[in-house]
């Protein structure tokens, strides 16, 4: 059994604003072992990016109020000195972002930026750093890396740029890689390549990976475990098989139902989830999903009043919902009939 690298316990990230307190992340807990991949899924505003930024310590200097625990390899990050967290950033844990064109500095060559990342954490000469940059570019599959290392970001294609970003993120051999929407800005064909790359690199470096996305297709490919977030809270957590074969939360059902699938019969039309994501300042009482949930009535008013805890519905599979397992099974099969009809 792989050891736990990242242990997040009851993480809360709140932003005080003039309009009120924004509860961007409100009680998220999970663990991640080395070599495993966690996919965090949710709509915009569900808190997935804020969680990952919180892990990286990138809320430092903002008004964010962070509470809870983030233990990276046993070391507590919440409340740790900023200098220590900065030391870890890029070396032990690193992150890649959605849009590689805007995420890379337009004035510096790709090689310089990669070397910079390396030089921050390693006392070596510039030549050595540069050589390392060339190596990394080769590792991520960029052809003729020795010449490409002196090119500027705008001289790369979208897919190549993202590879370069990945090269930069992995240059210090981090133990944790967080990929925030790594393929959203890319063509579909390129998406597959990037996901394959991440898969290969993970196996090579044995790093833990968190993939954040709203795209269930991406998650299905790569993740060992999946965390579904809603309104800053956890909705469901389980292995990829659990989530896809027997999803337990009505929100997850909605996500899956609104997603075209190859392994099921073709639907006439996709079924979106009714309503819009809630305000994070005035989160609905009780279960945050209840205004949009078609099963809320079945819980006898609990959904409106009581916040559901994450309860196991199967070993390693937790759902934050007031529905009983029977109600759940019934709801799923009627939905399935709906699909067959």
């Amino acid at each position, binding site marked *: 059994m792989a050891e736990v690298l990242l242990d997040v316990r009851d993480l809360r990230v709140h932003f005080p604003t003039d309009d009120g307190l924004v509860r961007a992340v409100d009680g998220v807990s999970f663990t991640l072992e080395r070599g495993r991949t966690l996919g965090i899924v949710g709509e915009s505003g569900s808190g997935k990016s804020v969680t990952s930024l919180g892990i990286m310590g990138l809320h430092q200097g903002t008004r964010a109020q962070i509470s809870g625990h983030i233990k990276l390899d046993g070391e507590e990050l919440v409340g740790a000195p900023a200098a220590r967290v900065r030391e870890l*950033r890029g070396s032990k844990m690193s992150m890649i972002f959605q849009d590689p064109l805007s995420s890379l500095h337009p004035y510096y060559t790709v090689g310089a930026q990669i070397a910079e990342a390396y030089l921050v954490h390693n006392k070596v000469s510039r030549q050595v750093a540069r050589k390392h940059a060339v190596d990394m570019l080769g590792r991520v599959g960029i052809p003729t890396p020795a010449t490409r290392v002196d090119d500027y970001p705008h001289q790369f294609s979208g897919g190549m740029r993202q590879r370069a*970003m990945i090269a930069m993120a992995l240059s210090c051999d981090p133990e944790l890689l967080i990929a925030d929407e790594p393929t959203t800005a890319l063509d579909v064909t390129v998406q597959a390549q990037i996901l394959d790359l991440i898969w290969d690199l993970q196996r090579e470096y044995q790093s833990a990976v968190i993939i954040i996305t709203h795209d269930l297709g991406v998650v299905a490919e790569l993740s060992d475990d999946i965390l579904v977030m809603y309104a800053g809270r956890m909705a469901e957590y389980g292995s990829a098989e659990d989530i896809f074969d027997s999803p337990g939360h009505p929100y997850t059902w909605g996500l899956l139902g609104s997603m075209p699938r190859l392994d099921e019969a073709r639907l006439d039309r996709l079924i979106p989830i009714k309503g819009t994501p809630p305000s994070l300042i005035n989160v609905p009482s009780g279960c945050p999903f209840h205004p949009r949930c078609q099963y809320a009535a079945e819980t006898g008013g609990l959904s409106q009043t009581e916040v559901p805890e994450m309860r196991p519905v199967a070993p390693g599979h937790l759902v934050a919902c007031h529905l009983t397992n029977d109600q759940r099974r019934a709801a799923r099969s009627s939905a399935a009939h709906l699909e067959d009809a």
Partner: protein
Amino acid sequence: MITFIIRRLIATVFLLIVVSMITFAIFFLIPRLAGQNTYQLATEYVGRNPTRAAVLQVEAQLGLDHPLWLQYWNFLKGIVAGAHYNSGTTSTYCPPPCFGYSFRSQQPVWPQMVSDLPVTLSLAIGAAVIWLVAGVAIGVISALKRGTLFDRFSMGVALAGVSLPIFFTGLISLELFSYKWPLFPNVQYVSFLTNPYLWARNLVLPWICLAFLYAALYARLTRAGMLETMSEDYIRTARAKGLPERTVIFKHGLRAALTPIVTIFGMDLGLLLGGAIITEYTFSLHGLGLFTILAIQNQDLPEILGVTMLAAFFIVIANLVVDVLYAYVDPRVRH
């Protein structure tokens, strides 16, 4: 990069020719369109009670009786190859660039402009250094400490600097620091070669007044630029790499925010080199700006042409330098 520069150089020469044509046309065509003929133009230079003979003499002396295209052609030739002026038995050679002779003083224009140039250069460059350093520094600090007392105060002062005209701040500073409490008595330009200490001391007041205006502008611009830059994605990436905050601010943030500032700086300096008119007038500094005012007041066409061309030259060169600099700094422009 080289081809880029060459292309721009050719465009520069072309631009200067166009400027010369337009200037020439403005000063010669428009009076014609307003009904003034060359006889009347010459009358202005003949003093009182002009006799017809005297006016015709002046007309010939000033070359006003030639057709327009010939005057322009002679003008262009003069700039490139110099000109010979015949007056009776004497013949004088006016070496290139020859901008002709002042109508009023009958002295060649170019040497006068050259002797005024160091004053304007001293004023412009000195002030430029001050405003660039002060403006950018204040702008960066304000951006980083956004919303604090420093930010609000400095932006308030900046607003004053941008709004107060130079002849106002100039006069106030003269009144206070030159006449009332003579910290800087007798503000008069002293050449750097003659006495560097006096050169600097006498320029302090004009430098500060001129720099105040621009520093304010640059502080606001830098602040806005920094705020925008610091919210860019690549700043987040830089932090994610674990870079120290100082490196993030300066190497990644300021570097990008400064690019438009550099462009504007080049243009501002180029414009100023043509003469900081109001500052020079307020402080009685004999630079190109004052030269311009006097040339216009006296309706001295060769002087007006000369100083317009020179100012245009500076602006066009500044434009060129800025373009090249920009291409050097921002690689995206090169391709």
